[in-house]
Each structure stands twice: as structure tokens, then as C-alpha cells.
């Protein structure tokens, strides 16, 4: 028995103890599973000599993992990670400045002035509206946060709790930045009676709406698009008043064991190959000249996203975070 155990132990450790090989990079990402698969296929074609070892976790879990690993970082590259979380000093301080090829083509709000991150893509806050359930209720499809005040939606709206979900926070921040403090809080207060739940996770509201548990789930564009793709009776609505958005940032880890290939990978995320891959599926691309994706078109995203997006100030919303969360608890009290 003991021999077997030590043998198994040896096997287990063997897997772990492999050193970083040239041509291999470790990438941590919070992008969606299916898009990662598509991008990596393209990356493999564009850079056949680089093997990408990828760990995919949800934004919150990945953030926790990155902070926990800070003493001995394992990743070379962070790819497609919510900018708000990237700006957390515990993570931002782990990044190295690197001006990726093509970064200067991005607007100033889509890259760090010290070159630690840039964001070629992003996603938009969106409602998932279950048209079947709404039809049963005989209520209209909402088009804005203001619409959600309609008493017809009582107990039928779900949104993420901003204290546990970045998505929830981005929605609240967009309302507050858009409407101003006073009107913003009033709106949040007015919608509250219709809110059935404030969920822990940011995608859960949309999942609930797609399962028909509730009529409206405030979530994110890509989650809604996944649901539409799967065939659920879901309509995606970008709120016409305060559509918050989040950027997906990329950055080089200061401790990267294979910085050369890591940099090549980062260059690739801004290059032609990646842009083509984004165009096939992304709803928000910041690289100039990339056309709207078919999925985004099907889901009803406007040609010019900037017409609906509220200009978010990420740095300001990060600083105000604690105060906003405290006030949110007071206002909503759940």
C-alpha cells in the first residue's frame, strides 16, 4: 500500500514540477470559454511556435487567485480581465509596463498611461428579457433603467449585488455617473420595490431570466448573447439611459518567466488576426475600424456603440467604491 502511495505521489508531483519551457507561456483569462477557444485557435495559426497554457476563471475568482499568488506569481500574461479589477493595486502593482505593438492606435481611455494595461475589447451592461414570461405578464419590454420603475415588473427583476459582483457595481456606477448622485440614488430606490433579488454573481440574473424564473435580469451583453445563441426566448436590451460597460484589459506580469513570448502574445491581441477573431463575436471592440460582430447585430446592438454607452470613469468609480457600497446598503437595505 505504502509503495503504491509513494508511486502515485511521484506521478502527481511529476506533473507539477515541469519548469517553464521556452515557447510556452501561462495566460490567465476571464474571457468566456467559447471565445477563448476561438481566439486560441487563431493564435496557434498566427504564432505556431508559442504554446499558450491557459487558466480560465470568472473575474472574481481570477482576481482572488492573482492576489493570493502575488508572493510567487505563476502567470506571464493577464488577458481579458475586467479593468476595474485590474486597477486594484494588489493586481496593478504586479504588472510591468509594456507598449504593445498597435497600442497607440487605441483611444487614450483604453490604455494605461504607464503602459501596464490596454483594452482592445469590452462588454456592455444589458438586460436579459424573457419575452415569454413578459408576454404572460402582459408587460412591455423595458428599454431603460427608468422603465424598470413600472409596477408591472413587481418581483420580476433581478440584478447583481454590487458588493459581491463587479457587474452589479458597474451598473450602479453607470447610473450614478449618468444621472448624478441625487437622481441616481433616487432611481435605484425607485426600482428597488420591483427587484426580486440581488444576486451574488453577475451572470446569474441573466441565467435566471433565461430559465424563465424571472422576467428581467440585469446582466452583461455577452451573457445575453450566449443565451440567445443557446435558443432561449431571450431578448437583449441595452438600457438607453445608463448603459455601463466594462473593458477587458490585457497586461504583462512583471514576473513573467518567458517575457519575450508573452510580449508577442500581447502584440497579437492587438493585431490583425485577433481583430478578425473579435469581429466575429465581440460586442465591444476598441480597435478602430473593426466591424460589428454578427452576434452583436443579431442581439440588437447598434452599429455605433458609443451612441448608447455612457462614458465611464473607471478610476473615479474605483475610488468611490467603498462610499457607494455603503450608501447602496443604506438605500436598498437587503
Amino acid at each position, binding site marked *: *500500500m505504502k509503495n503504491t*502511495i509513494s508511486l*502515485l*505521489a511521484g506521478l*502527481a*508531483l511529476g*506533473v*507539477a*514540477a515541469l519548469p517553464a519551457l521556452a515557447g510556452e507561456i*501561462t*495566460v490567465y483569462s476571464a474571457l468566456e*470559454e*467559447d471565445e477563448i*477557444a476561438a481566439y486560441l485557435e487563431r493564435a496557434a495559426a498566427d504564432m505556431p511556435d508559442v504554446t499558450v*497554457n*491557459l*487558466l*480560465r476563471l*470568472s473575474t*472574481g*475568482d481570477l*482576481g*482572488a*487567485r492573482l*492576489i*493570493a*499568488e502575488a*508572493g*510567487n506569481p*505563476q502567470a506571464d500574461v493577464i488577458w481579458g480581465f475586467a479593468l476595474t*479589477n485590474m486597477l*486594484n493595486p*494588489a*493586481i496593478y502593482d504586479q504588472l510591468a509596463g509594456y507598449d504593445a505593438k498597435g497600442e497607440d492606435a487605441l483611444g487614450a481611455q483604453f490604455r494605461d498611461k504607464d503602459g501596464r494595461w490596454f483594452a482592445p475589447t469590452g462588454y456592455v451592461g444589458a438586460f436579459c428579457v424573457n419575452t415569454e*414570461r413578459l408576454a404572460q405578464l402582459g408587460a412591455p419590454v423595458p428599454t431603460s433603467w427608468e422603465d424598470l420603475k413600472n409596477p408591472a415588473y413587481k418581483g420580476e427583476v433581478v440584478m447583481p*449585488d454590487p*458588493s*459581491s*459582483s*463587479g457587474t452589479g*457595481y458597474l451598473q450602479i456606477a453607470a447610473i450614478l455617473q449618468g444621472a448624478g448622485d441625487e437622481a441616481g440614488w433616487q432611481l435605484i430606490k425607485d426600482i428597488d420595490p420591483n427587484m*426580486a*433579488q440581488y*444576486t*451574488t454573481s453577475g*451572470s*446569474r440574473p441573466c*441565467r435566471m431570466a*433565461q*430559465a*424563465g*424564473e*424571472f422576467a428581467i435580469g440585469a446582466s452583461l451583453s455577452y451573457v445575453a448573447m*450566449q443565451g440567445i445563441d*443557446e*435558443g*432561449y*426566448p431571450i431578448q437583449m436590451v441595452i438600457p438607453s439611459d445608463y448603459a455601463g460597460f466594462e473593458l477587458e484589459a490585457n497586461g504583462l506580469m512583471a514576473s513573467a518567466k518567458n517575457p519575450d513570448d508573452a510580449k508577442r502574445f500581447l502584440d497579437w491581441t492587438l493585431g490583425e488576426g485577433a481583430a478578425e477573431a473579435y469581429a466575429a463575436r465581440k460586442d465591444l471592440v476598441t480597435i478602430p475600424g473593426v466591424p460589428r460582430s454578427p452576434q452583436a447585430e443579431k442581439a440588437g446592438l447598434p452599429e455605433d456603440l458609443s451612441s448608447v454607452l455612457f462614458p465611464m470613469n473607471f478610476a473615479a468609480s474605483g475610488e468611490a467604491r467603498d462610499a457607494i457600497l455603503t450608501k447602496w*446598503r443604506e438605500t436598498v437595505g*437587503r
Partner: protein
Amino acid sequence: MSAAGKRVARGLDTPFEERLFQRVVLLVPLAGLALFFLYPLAIVIWRSLLQRDGAVGFGNYREILALDHLWRVVWNSMVMSGLTALICVSLGLVIAYAMSRSRIPLRWLVSLALILPLLAPSLVQALGLIFMFGRNGLLNYLTGMQMQIYGLPGLVIANSMYALPQAVMILAVALRYADRRQYDAALVLGASPWRRFVDITLPSLRFGLLSAGFVCFTVTITDFGNAAVIGGNYRVLASEIYAQVVGQMNFNMGAVVGILLLIPTLLAFYLEKVAAQRGGTQEGAIPVEPDRWAPRDIPLWAASYLTALFLIAIVAVVIFASFVQLWPYKMSLTLKNYNITTHGGYDPLWTSLYASLITATFGTLMLFALVLAQRKMSRGPARLVYLLAIIPVGVPGLVLGLSYVLSFNVKPVFPGILYGSALLIAFCNFYHYHSQGFLTMVTGVRNVPRQLEETVTTIGGGVWANLRDAIIPIMVPTLISVFFFLFMRGMVTLSAVIFLITPKLSVGAVSVMRLDQAGSSTQAAAFSVLIMLTVLAAMGLMRLLLLAQARYNGRPGKGEIAA
């Protein structure tokens, strides 16, 4: 007690071999606990003391305790876990009693139903509950009711499903050993069945009942998964950790809540006191034969069957959903959900199987050694060991997982080499469930009559003879229960493990979560069904081996509650 026995019991004349054995069975499990539990826990405590301003102190604690919503959340947690523990201990007692003291028909079916919640990932079980009882679930759809599952009721149901099998495991072990002569004597004295239950059975179960209650309360107060899916607006302490760590990326505050959640484990002080009142099993105890008595059996069986039916129904919904095109909108059947193309396909399942076998084998050996050692220790040290063994149950999975990253992702080769290995995942899962295994073992070993050991020693048997002839034969059913318990939890536990997977190493439970996150609950259900099948197949195989060995040794294998 013979004179020689007394001398041995006092540690005089102890042969070298026996002293060595005592050392090994104590020190090896303690070293494991120190490295894989105390060291990570110490790091969590350290983090909880690191203040925002960089100083070290109790500032974070003051900040958390000053939150006005905290006390409501604490109260919510207490109510939820209290209710869950109450339900699980009473229902667990009924079921364990029906299974071991009455001739319940279809016993195997009830056994099977009871392990279902242990071998299905909790995420999927919560989905099953929503598919069944949700606003758009089967029941509301079929009956036109508007039942509300979200909130306290759903949370108590989901957590009871999770905790009940653990309560039954402990109570069944507690009930297994009793001396029929006591019951016969009571019968002769004219005691009614109720009196016999109250005067003989209950007192002998006291430790088991308290342990089960303790486990149910603690595992549910630290569990966050069900609260997230089905808890609605009913906030509990465990969700507060999630909000701090994952939502606001505020580790040190999360650590504070994690440490506060250890408070219920202080109950263990009292438990240990009861444990010290050693079991009264006599040498040559005659096992209590299950019997029939309709007035008792009918309600017991009804409760057992109803519970089993409920547990089976939830899993059946999950299995059904795994074959459905698009729940609940296109109910046509399909096999497409089983075509898993997510990262790694089915590979993580094999990693899980391998890691879980290590968890179960290593864990059972360690726990058995620890209870053997603890049994021979004097009061004070035994108490320390006991407390140490029981604290892990109070640590939430999320906190344990992160503490493992902080402890093992280090530059020195040891223990850094463990980071990113399947072995570390295996250890993490074992120490996560250390307490439940330990309490089951202690409950079991209390019933090994000391006189029997002394007899074996007196007739010249050494340590090994004692183990082989006195302790192991009585402990076999307990060892099997613990082994299978650890194995099943290793296969499906997610909370801690999610921080230990790497690009090259993932496990089945993570695949389930990924599929759910990618929007396909039916594929998540399909993967869970495969995990369940794998576990059942592996357990069936192991049982066959055990049976074959028992036959070879001429010892009939006993039916187990957990298998």
C-alpha cells in the same frame, strides 16, 4: 481488569514495539494536520490582522463588527444553520434507526438515496431544486401554484440535503454498536419499547447526536454555494466572505469573516467533554438484531421512504435535464449535452478519480491512526488532538483554498513543489472534510471494548495482533464509511479546489462549474451525471473487492450505510 492489563494501561512494561507504534500513529497524522491545516490557518489569521493602513492589529475586526448589516447576517446564519441541524439530526436519527434497528424493506434503495447528495456537485443539486421547485419549475408548472423557493426555505432544504447524509453517517456508526443483553434485561424488567429507547438507546447515542448536530450546523454555516444560487436575498455570513474576497478583492476582510466563522467550532469543547465519557460497550457485546414492531416501524419507514423519494426526485430531475434540448423551453430529448468540448473534455474526470482515491486512502489511514493514538492518550493531550481534528469543519472552502495558495505557492522547493499538483488537491479535499471523518471514526472506536484489547494483549498478542484481532474487525464498517465519504466528497467538492487548478490540471467539479458559467445548465447536468456514474462504478468495484476479501478471510462483510 487483570493486573497485567492495569500495568499496560498505565504505560508500564510497555514493549518498545508498542511505544514506537504509538509515536507513529500520533506523529504522522499530527504532522499532516500541521502542514496542511495549521500552517494555512496561521496564514489566514495573519492576513486577518493586516490592516488597510499596513499596520498589524485588530482594526479589520473592529471594522467588520461595526458594519450595521453584520448582526442581521449573523442572525440569518444562525437561524438557517440551526434549523438545518435540527432537521438533519432528527431526520437522520429516524433514518439511521430505521436502517440499523428495523428490518426496513428496500434498505439498499434508502442507502443509495442517501449518498446521492454526497456524490452530486452541490451546484447541480441547487439547479435540480430550482428545476423542480423554482418559479418556472416542474411543480409550479404542473400544479399552477406560485411557490417561492428562493430565500430561507430553499436554503434550508438545499443545505439539509447536503448535511443529512453526514448526520446519518455518524448516527449509523453510533447505532451500530450496542449490547443486546441490556435490551433483554430491560425487557425482562418490563420496560416499554419507548422506555428502552429513552433509557438505553438515547444515552448511548448522546455523543453521536451531538457530533451530528455540530457537523450539520458548522458545514452549513460555512457553505456559500447554496446561498448564492437559491438563497435569494437571505444573506448569510458565508456570502459576506464571498462579497469581501471575490466581489471587492479585499482579502484581509474576508479572512476576518473566515476567522469569525470558526466561533461555532468552539462548541467542540463541550463535545469533547461528552466524548471523554467513554462508550460503555462490554467485552463480547451481543449485537442488537434488527427486529419488527409495526407501531414503531411504520412511521420510521414512512419518513425514510419520503426522504429517499425526495432525494431521488431531485437527482432524477437533474438526470432528466441532462437529456433535454433546452430546459424548460424545448423538452425534446437529445444526447448532445454529453458531447463535452469544454477545455479538457473528460480528462478532468480522471484527474478527479485519481485525486479522490488518494484523498480517501490517505485520509482513512490518517484518521484511523489518529483515533488509535488519541484512544491511548491521557486526558489533556487527547483533548488538544480532539480540538485540532475538529476545527477544519469550521473553515469555509473558499478560505481554505486561498490559504492553500498563500501557503504552498512559495519559492522554496518544499512545500512549493506541491503547488499545482493533483496531490495538493487531494490533501486539500481531505483536510476540508477531516472533522466529519474524525468524528465518525471516534464514534466508531468508542465501541471497541477495552477489555477485548486487554484480552488480546494479555494472551501475548503484540500491537499488530491487537489491531488485527481486536480493533480492525470491529472498525471495518466505520473505515469503509469514512473511505467512501472522503472519496465522494473528493470527486465533487469545488469551493477550495477552484483555486488549486492550473492550466494543465483541472478536476471534474470545475468542469461542471465552467459549463454552467458558459450558460449551459443542461451540459453541467450531463457532466454531473457522468461524475455520479463514475463514483458509483468505482464504489461498486471497491465493494466487490471488499466482499471477495471478506469471503477469503471467512468474515462476512457487513452492509454499510454509506455504500
